[in-house]
């Protein structure tokens, strides 16, 4: 049976950052990822990140991903791909399948960094070929270099909808419009400005009434919403499109945490049911940690910081760092995390994360 100090499940920004941090301390780390390529969502981010120099601001997401991978290689972290973890059992026994074969891994510490998945939206015609998640379109254009269509209508004005619209145009598609059900744009103004300059209209208080098409998306009918989110008859607009991308939020992929027995708390701004964790990123289950979007939907930058935090905490718990060194490193990370969670966009997340960490104290 395979053994490791630390098993990290998920080789995205949180998982890789965690592995690097723990391996730096001297721990034996194994990272398991169900995909054929590591990096999670990071390699699809071809835009420059925000933040400060310590957050690697100004660097394109996929280059940060490449740097992370190089570091894992240099530090001798084992990254096992095509490894779908399907169970976490007593005494931190992990079961996974690789190439159709069962494997087990026993770890002293487990870090769940499984990320989040896209939400769907229901409306007549929502199952037609051509309707897909915005992340799906992003995967196709930035990883596979294939356009899913040529005339795209984007649903959702959060950062995902705004950024993917821009990236679709960079790949050569036309974005006919971006619609948002709320009365205002949810993501960063600068992302919206880029697509407005490119001629993409943004319609707020608008949703999809239906999609018309025989075997695929051919026409999209949008309709405006009133203050009570009800459709206003007579405000329909028709758009010719062959693709509709849904950027309507993400939900943490928490199945393994549920299965292992972690306690959860319901915090809508973070995506719904999220695992309770402390300032060390440890859940209510001893030895099981979480990092990244599984703890609540934020962004790649905070995922990487949370991953580092979990890595340091695991290394400390295993004795690779003494208390003083660990505290120093953890404080640096917490400062960087706090810096990301400020301002009109970050403040809400700061409060939400505070609630999540405090939830532990409220458990019976």
């Amino acid at each position, binding site marked *: 049976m395979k053994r490791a100090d630390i098993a990290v499940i998920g080789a995205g920004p949180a998982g890789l950052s965690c592995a690097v941090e723990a391996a730096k301390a001297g721990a034996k780390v194994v990272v398991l990822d169900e995909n054929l390529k590591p990096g999670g969502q990071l390699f699809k981010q071809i835009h420059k990140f925000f*933040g400060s120099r310590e957050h690697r601001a100004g660097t394109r997401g996929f280059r940060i991903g490449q740097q992370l991978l190089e570091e894992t290689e240099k530090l001798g972290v084992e990254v096992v791909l095509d490894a779908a973890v399907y169970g976490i059992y007593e005494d931190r026994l992990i079961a996974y399948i690789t190439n159709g074969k069962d494997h087990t891994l026993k770890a002293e510490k487990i870090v769940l960094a499984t990320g989040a998945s896209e939400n769907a939206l229901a409306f007549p015609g929502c199952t037609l070929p051509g309707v897909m998640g915005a992340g799906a379109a992003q995967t196709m254009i930035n990883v596979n270099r294939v356009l899913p269509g040529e005339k795209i209508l984007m649903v959702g004005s959060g950062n995902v909808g705004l950024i993917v619209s821009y990236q679709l145009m960079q790949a050569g598609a036309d974005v006919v419009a971006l619609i948002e059900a709320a009365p205002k744009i949810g993501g960063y103004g600068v992302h919206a400005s880029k697509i407005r300059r490119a001629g993409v209209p943004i319609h707020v208080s608008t949703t999809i009434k239906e999609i018309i098409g025989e075997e695929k998306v051919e026409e999209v009918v949008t309709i405006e919403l009133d203050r009570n989110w009800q459709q206003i008859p007579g405000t329909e607009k028709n758009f010719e499109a062959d693709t509709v991308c849904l950027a309507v939020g993400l939900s943490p992929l928490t199945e393994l945490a549920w299965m292992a027995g972690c306690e959860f708390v319901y915090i809508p701004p973070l995506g719904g049911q999220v695992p309770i964790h402390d300032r060390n990123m440890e859940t209510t289950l001893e030895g099981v940690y979480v990092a990244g979007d599984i703890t609540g939907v934020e962004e790649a930058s905070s995922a990487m910081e949370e991953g580092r935090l979990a890595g340091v905490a695991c290394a400390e718990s295993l004795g690779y760092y003494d208390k003083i060194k660990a505290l120093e490193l953890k404080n640096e990370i917490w400062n960087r995390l706090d810096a990301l969670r400020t301002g009109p966009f970050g403040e809400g997340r700061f409060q939400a994360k505070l609630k999540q960490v405090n939830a532990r104290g409220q458990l019976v």
Partner: protein
Amino acid sequence: MTEQQGIIYQGFPSKEELLKIPGVPSKERIKKGPVACIECVQEIPCNPCEEACPYGAISVGKPITNLPVLDEEKCIGCGTCIAACPGLAIFVVSVSGEKAEVSFPFEYYPLPNKGDEVWCVDRAGKQVTRGKVLRIIKSPKYDATAVITVEIPAEYLDNVRSIKRLERGNK
């Protein structure tokens, strides 16, 4: 239904919003020569512009959500900040008599050629004037963000912030 003005409704800053921020230069300064125009109106944690400016003309300080402040005397309009801004929200502008020049970041394919006549667009993507491409700068430091300078009639200085995307063809 009249559409509300403002970046959270329209997706681009209104004239009112641009008047209130510390990143835009004065009309007097623009007449003296190229100067940066930082159209950053929302407080997000971000400060690469401050780090990038070789002349210390941009300050953000702490917390890094502060809006960037432009020192228009220190700024010589070198344009380094244009490609450094992850939000592509920084421009360099200047005016001389009847002609104005606007430099802006551009990350689409294909790029125009120097000397081309192109359609210039405003913040809403509307084609407002023809313009001539004076310069296209690509630098490894800019990491795939090209900086294009167009010459336009002076009356469009406050409006033009990009060009219409060009047809891809089979170049």
